[in-house]
Every structure is written in C-alpha cells, then in structure tokens.
C-alpha cells in the first residue's frame, strides 16, 4: 500500500493516534509528514517519549490533545519547541504520565485489559493534576472517566506493597511504527531497541508499518525469535526507505544533527516555521521528494557504519 493511501484510509480527523519511536530514534517521520501534508486535524495523540514526531505533528496543526510522558528531543531540544509553544498558548491540552505508566497503558491495551498496576505516581502531581477534566472525560467515551486511580493492595502487604496506582489502557484507533524490516504480509522485525512500539501496535485497532526493507516471508521465518509483530496485527505495510529521517534508524542511518538543529531554529519563530512547513512538507508530494530536498553530503554523512549501527564519528554539534 502507498503511504498516502494508508494515511488517508486509517488516519481521520479527530482520531486517536499513537506513534512509535523514542526522541531522536525510529520515529515514523514519513508518516508524520504525510499526516501534516494531508492536513489532518483534531488528532488525539499518544506517545511516551516520542520527540521529533510529536513536535512536528503539533507544529503542523494536527493535534488537539496529547497524552505523553516526555516531550524533549535530546540535546536538539531539551523541551520540544512547538509542543512548548502550543501548551503555553493554550492551543494544546496535555495529560502527563510517566514513561513507565505510558508504556504500561499501551501494554494494557495490547493485553486487552482495562488497566495495569504500577508503583509509581503515588504522591506525584501526575496523580493529582488531570489534563482532561472529569466532566469532559465523562462526555467522551474514548477517554476513560479517571486519569488513574490509587488503591490499597488487596493482597495485604504481599510483595512489600501497600498502595498501587492503576493506569488505564490506551486503545488507539491507529498506531504507526517504523521498522527496519517487514514482509509484505506485515510480519515485523525491529533491530536494536524496540522501545514501546510493539505494545503500541498491539493495542491499536489499526496498524500501519513503514519499513526500510521488505523481504521474503521465508527469510523472516528462519529466525522467528527476532520478529516482534505477527502479520495478523498489521493493516498496512509501506516500503519507505529513509522513513524515519531525520530521526535515526539503527543499522541504516543516524539522526541528522543538521536537520534537527535547523528544525529547532525554524520552530522557534512562527514565520520561519510556516516557511519550513511550506517548503519541506506542503510543497513536497511525498517522502522521496522531501528526502531529495536534503543536501546529499548530509545524507551521506549519516549513513550507518555496519559495525556500530550508527554513523561513527559523525559531527553532532
């Protein structure tokens, strides 16, 4: 399936969307740009520590509500710039959790459970301060009535625990992840760290996988231990080389420090950011056209060294 078709088919205005990756690594950026290009609006977005993808979707005007643990992008943006602007201006409603809590919320969705317990959040304002107010929650059947709840351990002091936080499952309408490898039926292999991508995919009603390489099914099945997602979880597989650019894809390419620094500078100024969107996203017809705008010497520099999986010695200032 082509990316524009997959996005127009599964990502709708107002849908609940989850994207994979973690800050500067393996964000499904091609899909993010296509969502912006298609001018989707009113998205309810979920992520744990997705940095670049979340910030671009917010900057693209696609997101109304965000549930997240961390909106930074490493050294390139200690706090994501468009995220910060949107929250401070009141354009974006945010509900904060911790990284473990968000990962467990996706895990609960993946497991078909309404919640999972966790021992973090007690006494934190994560428990006390709710982004979505109780009345708004009750009127929206796609948001749980409670942000979370704290219970006494029903097993006494078993496991040396007196109180626990229960965090509600996330069941996105659609999750999008970027992998190194898949077959055409949708069996997925991620190399390096998988973050929470697999749980995000399993929790969702629909799953779009973009990938660097499509290989023959038989090849993936020689080492079933290395595959993380079976084909029956996946709705669309899109072959998309450089699909995580400008974030990294372990074994294929590094993040592009030049792009990420430029992006931060554009993002800090509303007019520059509008020009950025216009030039790189709205005026490119697809990801290949977007990639062709990047200076070749920069793309060459981020090619991964096969021994390390990243661009050894890359100037990252």
């Amino acid at each position: 399936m082509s990316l524009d078709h997959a996005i127009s088919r599964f990502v709708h205005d107002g849908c609940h969307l989850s994207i994979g990756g973690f800050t500067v690594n393996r964000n499904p950026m091609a899909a993010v740009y296509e969502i912006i290009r298609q001018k989707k609006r009113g998205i309810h977005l979920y992520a744990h520590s997705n940095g670049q993808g979340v910030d671009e979707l917010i900057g693209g005007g696609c997101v109304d509500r965000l549930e997240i643990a961390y909106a930074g992008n490493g050294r390139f943006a200690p706090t994501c710039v468009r995220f910060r602007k949107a929250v401070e201006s009141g354009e974006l409603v945010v509900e904060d959790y911790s990284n473990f809590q968000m990962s467990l919320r996706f895990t609960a969705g993946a497991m078909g459970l309404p919640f999972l317990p966790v021992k973090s959040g007690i006494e934190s304002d994560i428990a006390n301060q709710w982004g979505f107010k109780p009345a708004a929650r009750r009127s929206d059947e796609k948001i749980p009535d409670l942000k979370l709840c704290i219970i006494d351990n029903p097993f006494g002091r078993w496991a040396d625990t007196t109180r626990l936080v229960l965090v509600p499952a996330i069941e996105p309408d659609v999750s999008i992840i970027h992998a190194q490898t898949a077959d055409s039926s949708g069996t997925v292999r991620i190399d390096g760290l998988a973050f929470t991508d697999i749980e995000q995919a399993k929790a969702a009603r629909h799953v779009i996988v973009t990938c660097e390489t499509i290989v023959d099914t038989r090849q993936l099945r020689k080492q079933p231990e290395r595959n993380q997602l079976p084909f029956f979880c996946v709705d669309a597989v899109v072959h998309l080389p450089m699909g995580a650019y400008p974030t990294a894809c372990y074994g294929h390419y590094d993040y592009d420090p030049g792009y990420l620094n430029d992006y931060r500078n554009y993002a800090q100024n509303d007019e520059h950011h509008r020009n950025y969107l216009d030039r790189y996203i709205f005026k490119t017809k697809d990801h290949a056209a977007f990639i062709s705008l990047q200076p070749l010497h920069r793309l060459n520099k981020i090619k991964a060294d096969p021994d390390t999986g990243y661009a050894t010695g890359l100037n990252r200032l």
Partner: protein
Amino acid sequence: MADFTLREMMTVVASREIHDGDIVFCGTGISMLAAMAAKHISAPESIIFFETGAIDAQLEEVPMAVSDSRVMLGAAMHGSLSEAFAFMQNPNTGSKVVGILGAAQCDLYGNLNSTVIGDYANPDIRFPGSGGACDVSSFVRRTIVFMQLEKRRFVPRLDYMTSPGWLKGYTSRTAAGLSQGGPSVVITDKAVFRFDEITRKMYLDGCFPDVSRQEVLDNMGFKVDVTREKPVAPPHACELEILRSRCDPQRLILGPS
C-alpha cells in the same frame, strides 16, 4: 590545581557517588556523562542502564539522547521500556539501581519538578515532563540530583511535583507507600547537598572550590543546615583527562572549555 569548568566539576563529583556493582540509571546529558566517567575512572564494574532498555551499554561515543543508537552497541541485552522500568520496580534488581535525575525545581526534601512553572492547566513555562523520572524516584535505592543553584530552582514549594523525594521528611515517604530509597545527594554548579538521616531535610555538604557559603545560601529559596559543611575536592587531573579524552571528546555535553 587543574583548570576545569563547573560542568566538569559537577560531572566528576557525581561520578564519585557511583560504585562498583551499582546499576546506574542515566538520563540525557550530564547524568550520562557522569555515569560514563564513573565507569572509566572509579567504578569499572558499574553498569550503565537506560530506560530505553539498553543494559550495560558500551558507549564508544557519548549518546545525545537515551534512545541514541549509540546506547545499543554492545549492550548485554535490549529490552522494551516496560522491561527496563520493571528492573527498577523489582526490589531484587531495583535495590542495586542508582538514579541520576535533573529538574527545573527542587525543594527542601529533594522533591522535583520537571513539568511546569505556573499552573498545570495554563503554565508560564512548560518543560518536557516526567519521562522516567517519576518512576526512577519512586523505585530505586538512591537518586543523585543535578541542579543549577538558583533561587528560582531551589524553592520552598514546587509548582508541580513530578518526582517524589523525601516528601515531607521523616518517614513520610515510606508511609505513603513508596520505596525506601530516595534522593541521597544534590549536586549543583556551586555546592553539594545531602539529606539528614532522620529529618530527611537537605543540608549543605560542601561548597565547590572558590565558592563561599554565603554565595550558596544567597542562591537558594529555602534555608538549609550548614553545620556539616566540608570542602568538596576538585577534580584530579587524571579524572579530567579521562572525562575530556575518553568520555566526551567532542564536548557535546561538557560544552565550551
């Protein structure tokens, strides 16, 4: 005495808090560098651990983020985020973990804010949020806190408590149901603070070379006990050499020398 920057001093001081056998939970930036420094200098048997699931990462180059592909190379294993946090929540492994955290605000009991300044629903300044900080501070045996020493950061009352420290002191932390661990040291660009064993209030452990006690107190929004103050040893030349040449030769995190 060797020339050094305050950032170098902070990194070296933090690295001294790490011992062989510690599993060091690292965030982005200076905490990662402190863990790398400890491993290269004083605690070769410490284990660098990222919430992203990379365990005992070898770190040939300094990562720019905890998801950097550089944390993946040569690790003992790659887990998921949930697996990584579960290692800290599990008391068998969590009791070996030392967390290193930064924050925008810190109070007398080492409670931390990394979420907002102002009202949560309508903030004056928005920060990235907890990430794994609330989890780490809730689970592990002890945490090392990095802060710039400024009045607006050392506040009597947090705008938002992201990560629980000693809460209201004494036994309030365990009474609330949190782990027995908690913040053990706060390392700033001017001084080092620790926490009283009984009251769990922060006290001044020592000032950096050439920093006066008064300068420290002037930069804090609350009073601390100063009776236990002792000098903080500056970095040794060999510590600096390893930090600069082995850990961050590009000075990505150390910044300008």
